[in-house]
């Protein structure tokens, strides 16, 4: 009896020393308690999941690139799969010039600008800075000169051209079209305008109620 229990204790210690404890970091793929060969088709069903690997397609990806010229019908706002509003989708007027203002299809209000701010902070602030002065965090790590929004060239720039820059990029800035939907790009443009306006503020812009609080006379 004693020997049997001793052997058992030895086996237990052996198992613990081989298997270790919970929470240790490891590099090899996790052990499968219910392996695929014993339970086929249970955890790994014959279906494709996003960004997964495919053994069927030559390029090895399950996400299929769109054939040239194809527009996904679900892309963009509902009801406009054709994107036939040049102002909204290309930032251009009927004559092909950069549109100076915002598309009529969008309501420019506080919510819209707040949305623009949220998107700006995520996607633009790292380089353009919280104030739009081109002093983002990336500058300290070697990002080249990022223009400030607060000069005449960018203050005069038509909204459509700023929209186009977000869509297609410019110089060293790459396209953000995959990250921002058209209406989100316009929201960012609106917030960029708000940043520009903020830098040109005067004491007269401060509401009377807050003037005293801020010590403005």
């Amino acid at each position, binding site marked *: *009896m004693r020997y*049997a229990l001793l052997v058992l204790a030895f086996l237990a210690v052996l198992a613990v020393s081989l298997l270790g404890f919970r929470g240790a970091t*490891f590099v090899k793929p*996790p052990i499968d308690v219910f392996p695929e060969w014993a339970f086929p088709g249970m955890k790994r069903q014959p279906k494709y999941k996003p960004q997964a690997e495919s053994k069927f397609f030559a390029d090895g990806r399950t996400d299929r690139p769109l054939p040239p010229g194809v527009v996904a019908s679900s892309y963009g706002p509902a009801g406009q799969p054709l994107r036939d509003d040049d102002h909204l989708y290309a930032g251009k007027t009927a004559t092909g010039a950069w549109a100076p203002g915002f598309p009529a299809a969008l309501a420019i209000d506080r919510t819209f600008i707040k949305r623009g701010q949220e998107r700006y902070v995520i996607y633009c602030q790292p380089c353009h800075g919280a104030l739009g002065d081109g002093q983002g965090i990336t500058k300290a*790590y070697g*990002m080249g000169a990022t223009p400030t929004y607060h000069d005449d060239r960018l203050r005069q720039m038509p909204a459509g051209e700023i929209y186009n820059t977000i869509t297609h990029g410019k110089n060293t800035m790459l396209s953000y079209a995959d990250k921002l939907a058209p209406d989100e790009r316009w929201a960012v443009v609106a917030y960029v305008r708000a940043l520009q306006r903020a830098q040109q503020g005067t004491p007269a812009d401060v509401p009377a109620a807050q003037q005293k609080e801020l010590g403005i006379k």
Partner: protein
Amino acid sequence: MPKLFPKSANRLPLQILTFVGVLGGLAALGVTYYMTPKYTRVGYAPVQPVPFSHQLHAGQLGLDCRYCHSNVEKSGHANVPTSQTCMNCHNQIKPQSPLLAVVRQSYESGEAVPWVKIHSVPDYAYFNHAAHVTRGVSCVSCHDRIDQMETVQHAKPFSMEFCLDCHRAPQEAVRPRELVTNLGWQHPAGASGQLRDGQKLVDDWKIKPPQSCSGCHR
């Protein structure tokens, strides 16, 4: 007539029972400890083709999670970024770094970077990222402090119990939407404040996390 069994055999049934009991106990302990995701998955930190540091990008630089995982609010799948996303900065920052050779090659050729998937649920479990992050469940709830990880590792077990714990008590995790990607945030009033405001958000947003099988298994 000599006795067939020695006297010590009288103890044998009890000894066998004891042994089987101890053996069964140890086996149960072993299965519970070693055959659950807390052991099999937690701690998984594979070597990636590019030694990307979340600690540097998300922690030190303060990039929002959504800068790279840009579809997480719109799609059930939280995308691994395109190599163009990397090149947004790395066409100028460390453009010659040998560590980024794989990314540059991918950007030029269009071939995908072979990132190793760490967090995964079985194909019969349907998890939707957008449904969670747009209703105030922070990344940190499932991925832990990714912003402090030099190398990403699987930090939470992702067992069914893990999901259900939160589905049964969402008020312990739900926070205002704008704080979802702020991984270090905790309710300033502590656990009681989280419960109070979490409950309010759960009520306002009418969050009813499914606890039925078909909520996640389809």
